[in-house]
């Protein structure tokens, strides 16, 4: 059993869709205070892994634990500890932001009083006051994403799983989202997927590199940097890359081929 500090743990997690193995024996754990970045090319199995931890999909084999509860055997208990932002931040377009958050809070079993207090806090910290009465279908991408985050935070969960929280946001919005994640980090275990490498340096305490469903690295951003192959100063760089990009390309292209 995972100890008190470990909030998320996966063991030999495997998911097959027909003959395709989307997730192949992924094993890691995340403790309180950690922000773990899932890095990997598109279709690497990041979202599938997150969906399994969130309990939306069942693994073909292996298991996932949230706050010590097996996501398959004890799904309701596991989900109580979990806030989940699915890819694309889905929400009901016909609802207003206020109604939607109240709906999620209610479904999460918060009393109306508690829900109001929590939602008021979130409106403040996530800056939703301006769109409070607007229907979600009328919101910009940035606001929609923020509503998705608010929905995941409404019950103040121990574990946050955010699937591409900054995708499609403009640079300012990205910055705000990262600041928010950083602010939340000390009291929670957070898993963030991204394919933006600078994000890993900006917010993550650890990065897990996934490609073809397999875990290729589990390291701090600094350790990841050290994996970058040395540059040959005589070869001119046509496309300028950062050291982290070099490391990422090295890990996902070369190791995956081994």
């Amino acid at each position, binding site marked *: 059993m995972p100890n008190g500090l470990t909030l998320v743990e996966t063991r030999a997690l495997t998911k097959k869709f027909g003959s395709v193995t989307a997730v192949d024996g992924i094993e890691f754990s995340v403790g309180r205070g950690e922000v773990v970045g899932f890095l990997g090319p598109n279709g690497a199995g990041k979202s599938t892994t997150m969906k399994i931890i969130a309990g939306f999909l069942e693994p073909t084999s292996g298991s996932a634990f949230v706050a010590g509860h097996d996501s398959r055997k004890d799904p309701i*208990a596991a989900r*109580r500890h979990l806030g*989940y932002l*699915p890819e694309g931040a889905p929400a*009901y377009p016909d*609802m207003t932001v206020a109604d939607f958050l109240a*709906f999620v809070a*209610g*479904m999460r079993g918060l009393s109306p009083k508690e829900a109001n207090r929590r939602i008021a806090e979130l409106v403040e910290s996530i800056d939703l006051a301006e769109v409070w009465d607007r229907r979600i279908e009328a919101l910009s991408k940035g606001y929609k994403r923020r509503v998705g985050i608010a*929905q995941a935070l409404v019950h103040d969960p121990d574990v946050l799983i955010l699937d591409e929280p900054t995708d499609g946001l403009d640079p300012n919005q990205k910055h705000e989202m990262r600041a928010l994640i950083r602010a939340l980090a000390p009291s929670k275990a957070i898993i963030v997927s991204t394919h933006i490498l600078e994000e890993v340096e900006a917010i993550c305490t650890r990065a897990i590199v996934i490609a073809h469903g397999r875990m290729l690295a589990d390291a701090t951003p600094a350790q990841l940097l050290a994996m970058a192959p040395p540059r040959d100063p005589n070869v001119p760089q046509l496309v300028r890359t950062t050291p982290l990009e070099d490391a990422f390309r090295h890990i996902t292209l070369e190791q995956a081929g081994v």
Partner: protein
Amino acid sequence: MIVRREFAAYFATPLAAVFLAVFVGVSAGMTFFVSGFFDRAQADLSSFFTWQPWLFLVLMPAVGMRLWAEERRLGTIELLMTLPVQPWKFVFGKWLAAFAFAGLALVFTMPLWITVNMLGSPDNGVILASYLGAWLMAGAFLAIASCISALTKNQVLAFIGAVIAGFLFVMAGFDLVLAAVRPWAPDVIVQAIASMSFIGHFQRITDGVFEASALVFFISLIAFALWLNVQILDARKAA
């Protein structure tokens, strides 16, 4: 919570108003023009209720098709299925909202009931029983539609599937369906299929025989379809 949200969702678009207008309009049209409500010179609503299975066959799938298919298309199904709530509660809640909506549609046809009382003295007990029977039958159509809606993210497919499934149930008592089964199946099965007929059960109710068997039939069919709906959602997780 879920019932309230789902019920409100019907009224978020003009769909609800259009649906209610079509339902009441077509119901009244059939009653007066096709069945000759006035020509029959009888103070009852049988000319209204005869058409209900056929109207429901098309209109209830239109109400139920969105229940799960839309969640899948929007991706909100990921939110629902990761909330600390048992899936059957969503299934039941969504169905209940659709059922309430169908009830509302029936309430809007009640001026017919008033009219028939002004023109003569109908057996109001039979009419009340027929209304309840029609509502239950609508519930059965909706449960089937909800179940099929869970299979796809395409609402049009959900609609067509639900109409076909509903058609089989409506026609189960007719030779069209029975003739296809009779040559190879034993009598027990033929009779079992015949006893699934929506029209058969509904007609007994509108004839004034509000027997328990029709009630039990519709309620158990609803329960079974909703149970299957939960199983489909479960199976999708493991897929």
